[in-house]
């Protein structure tokens, strides 16, 4: 039950984008088309889970024993950077279509704060390895959900006639704000 609550909170009540403000850059940049948003979402789920596991292990077996917690930021980002570059190479070879769709954002997944953020949150909240995996996947799914919702909205807005000043990031942010309002309904639904 506790794990279910963790999933629920990570996806809905404490959505990584809509209430924790992580991963806003790809959220604004890649939510223009449904296809890319799904692709990016899945890439994030994948990278996030992998990096969370690796960083959790490193933290437990390398940093904590030597009480080097202050090295977390630097060690984690190193791991994530390496991991992402690895994934990038594999993806480029095995799925060029997806690679092209994600474009410059795949290298920027390194600088996607959700990945580092979730890695740090995991060790900060002292999740065990199961919780870490569940939380990472759920957070990634929450990110995907927010992306897909926004992609749907933006695809529809493509056909709308609106002020050129507001088109793009501005109206996306406002929509995210209202979505975030709607997600507030889930607040307090599950006590962790």
């Amino acid at each position, binding site marked *: 039950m506790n794990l279910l609550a963790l999933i629920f909170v990570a996806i809905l009540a404490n959505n990584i984008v809509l209430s924790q403000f992580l991963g806003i850059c790809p959220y604004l940049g890649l939510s223009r088309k449904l296809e890319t948003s799904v692709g990016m979402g899945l890439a994030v789920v994948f990278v996030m889970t992998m990096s969370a596991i690796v960083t959790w292990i*490193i933290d437990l077996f*390398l*940093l904590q024993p*030597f*009480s*080097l917690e202050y*090295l977390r930021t*630097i*060690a984690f980002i*190193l*791991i994530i*950077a*390496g991991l992402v*570059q*690895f994934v990038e*190479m*594999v993806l*480029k*070879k095995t799925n*060029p279509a997806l690679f092209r769709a994600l474009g410059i954002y795949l290298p920027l997944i390194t600088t996607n704060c959700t990945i580092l953020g979730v890695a740090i949150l995991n060790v900060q909240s002292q999740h065990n390895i199961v919780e870490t995996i569940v939380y990472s996947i759920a957070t990634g799914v929450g990110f995907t959900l927010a992306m897909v919702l926004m992609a749907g909205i933006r695809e529809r807005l493509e056909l709308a006639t609106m002020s050129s000043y507001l088109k793009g990031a501005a109206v996306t942010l406002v929509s995210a704000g209202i979505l975030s309002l709607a997600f507030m309904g889930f607040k307090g639904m599950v006590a962790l």
Partner: protein
Amino acid sequence: MELVMSMAIIGGLGLFFAIVLAYAAQRFAVEEDPRVEMVIDLLPGANCGACGFSGCAAAAEKICCGEVPVDSCIPGGKAVCDSICEVLGVAAVASEGRKVAEIHCLGSRDVAPDKFEYQGVHDCKAAMMYSGGFKACSYGCLGLGTCVEVCPFDALSMGANGLPQVDTEKCTGCGVCAKACPRGVIHIVSADRKAKYVPCNSHDRGKTVRQVCEVGCIACRACVRACPNEAITMEDNLAVINRDKCDDCGKCVEVCKRGIIKDVGKVLVVA
């Protein structure tokens, strides 16, 4: 001890990933042409489609693998062509000069009336679907501004007289407007052309033209006879000035009964 450990851990991690990535870089190497990126940067990025591809990136790819000539980018003109040649390391080709769009109709609503009242989508192509367009002259500009809408360079605007005008500074001669115009009123011409031209598109016989427009060419041939350089010919009831032969002497302007041989600059300025 702590210092040593931190250095060891960070160093160790760095080393580990360096090795893994070095291996992966070889294992998953993907061949790609670095020149494509460079060519994309050189292209104007308007994605106007004048080259025949869906966008600048697609065109860059084709240019790099030599499938299309280096001067395929019409809006970029000579400057872009030269820099692409530089990137690709090929000899610069003699590209044609800069081109611009020219509007070949003077038939604003007051001089060229409509034959019926059109209601519906405000778009020239859409209007053409109903009885061939509402303007009595079947060759003249409908004036619904489809060309203005499609111009990727913001170079066309609708004049107060209901006819489009070209901002020759912004116009790149990409030809998107000419393709969009269902009546073929817009011609793409060399930017350093001679000034004189016949801003009419009508191939109707003189009698018909008189009925539908006050400023259309009636094919009276006066200009053809007057031209000392034999630069003017009558092509399908429309006077056409060959600008290679024209020397802007202005004799045709004097004899034209309809007063419709104009200097390019002069008709453009319509308040």
